[in-house]
């Protein structure tokens, strides 16, 4: 059994699986049940001036038979009074002293408002605070959530105000609804953030009902944009985590959020620099007990790899994540089709012929049997055929040894510039 304990900027947790601030962490009843199921921590649903929600709040995007590929919500922060939440937070922490209880906060961008709520929340014994600068709907119209999070100066200032009053670690939750998330992350760090968490939800409209012409979801015939999450957003979240992890100015731990649905997703986020993960949609889809499978899977993975502690995963892939200009132009892979297992469905041929580089030939052997063959000299190694192939293992992307040493685009540009410069000097002489 590997050691699954993590410590996010001074907040210890028995495992890296935390529930994200969202409907699953609305009450003490829910969070305590989650801890009983095995979750290592929870970020309490955002506290602030209690709001009033609409009816009809969630929508999902199902794709080709997969339920909840993406999830959209227009629910806002807590609709319960602060004192009610604080009482339940206190009781929860008392009952589960070794679990991480972090509380999400959102107030107007005023110094005294931040001081007030930080002091009140910390007084009940929380392990940390998460500043919600991410929610894209509803609260943003009132100048909070992502409306704050899209303004780096405002993030920095509010983080500073929270830190002035805080005794526990302050995590700043970032919005992905911005061009470059590292800018806001850096400002959070300048404001004194002890960690950043990302991503919050992405602006979205789940759909339009083509029969009623209503939005999905709609509230009495009217809709508004919501926040998108679930498996569909994982690649976006992973990329943003990676960007922050490799930025030396974002020099604080990262809590990864966004479409994490399995122990494998968790490993990916940790390899890419996250100290732990926060999960919501998977729990909403499958219930709290999904964490059992995640814990078992992570344990087995670490044991199989001979890794004693889960924290040894953190950031291992970050050095491998660079810029396009640093990729080797001479690295070459080509597709190889296994004629023994190929079912001749022709999908690779169609994909290559119609939308890629026209290098898969449909041929007939001496016995009149059709088969597919890649002209390797024309294959650019785009992977499309392997992606569309419906049978695992039929198409392998095989590395071919080239005759040239590695050369990146940046190497190339420097070499050409140098060559042209030498030539100019010669001509000048």
């Amino acid at each position, binding site marked *: 059994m590997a050691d699954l304990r993590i410590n996010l900027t001074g907040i210890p947790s028995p495992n890296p699986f935390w529930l994200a601030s969202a409907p699953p962490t609305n009450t003490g009843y829910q969070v305590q049940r989650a801890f009983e199921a095995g979750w290592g921590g929870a970020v309490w649903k955002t506290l602030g001036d209690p709001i009033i929600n609409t009816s009809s709040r969630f929508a999902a995007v199902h794709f080709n038979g997969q339920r909840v590929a993406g999830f959209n919500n227009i629910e806002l922060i807590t609709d319960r009074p602060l004192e009610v939440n604080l009482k339940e937070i206190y009781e929860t922490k008392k009952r589960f002293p070794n679990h991480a209880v972090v509380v999400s906060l959102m107030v107007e961008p005023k110094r005294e408002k931040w001081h007030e709520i930080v002091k009140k929340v910390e007084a009940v014994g929380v392990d940390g605070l998460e500043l919600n600068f991410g929610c894209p709907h509803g609260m943003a119209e009132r100048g909070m959530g992502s409306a704050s999070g899209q303004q780096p100066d405002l993030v920095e200032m509010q983080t500073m105000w929270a830190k002035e009053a805080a005794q526990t670690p302050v995590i700043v939750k970032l919005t992905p609804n911005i061009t470059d998330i590292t800018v806001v992350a850096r400002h959070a760090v300048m404001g004194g953030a002890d960690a950043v968490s990302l991503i919050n939800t992405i602006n979205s409209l789940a759909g339009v009902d083509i029969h009623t012409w209503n939005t999905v979801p709609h509230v009495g015939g009217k809709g508004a944009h919501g926040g998108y999450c679930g498996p569909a957003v994982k690649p976006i979240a992973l990329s943003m985590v990676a960007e922050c992890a490799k930025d030396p100015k974002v020099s604080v731990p990262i809590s990864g959020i966004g479409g994490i649905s399995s122990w494998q997703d968790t490993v990916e986020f940790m390899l890419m620099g996250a100290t732990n993960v926060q999960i919501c949609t998977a729990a909403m889809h499958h219930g709290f007990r999904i964490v059992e499978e995640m814990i078992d899977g992570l344990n087995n993975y670490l044991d199989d790899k001979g890794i004693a502690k889960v924290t040894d995963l953190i950031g291992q892939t970050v050095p491998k994540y660079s810029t396009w200009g640093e990729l080797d132009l001479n690295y070459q892979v080509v597709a190889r089709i296994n004629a023994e297992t190929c079912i001749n469905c022709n999908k690779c041929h169609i994909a290559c012929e119609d939308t890629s580089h026209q290098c898969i030939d449909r041929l007939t052997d001496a016995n009149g049997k059709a088969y597919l063959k890649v002209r390797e000299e024309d294959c650019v190694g785009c992977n499309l055929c392997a992606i569309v192939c419906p049978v695992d293992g039929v198409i392998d992307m095989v590395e071919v040894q080239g005759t040239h040493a590695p050369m990146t685009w940046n190497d*190339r540009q420097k070499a050409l510039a140098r*060559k042209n410069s030498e030539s100019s000097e010669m001509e000048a002489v």
Partner: protein
Amino acid sequence: MSAYEEFAREKRAVDALLQDGFVIVGTSEELEGMELRFRKRLAGSTESPEPVYAKLLLLTADARKYVSNLIFSEQQKKQA
């Protein structure tokens, strides 16, 4: 024509000039492709003491990469 054959044709043109004693002295990249400028100095020749110039326009990505590799590796060797 296959992409490889297009590349091979351009590579042959580059190699032919190099084998003929030309050296690459400059490149420029435009919307039309990569223009390569070659020069051959006929040292010892009484008929043509002045350098001889040649140009090639490379269209394929692989040929442009091939030439880049030649220039890059030549510079790497000089540095070594």
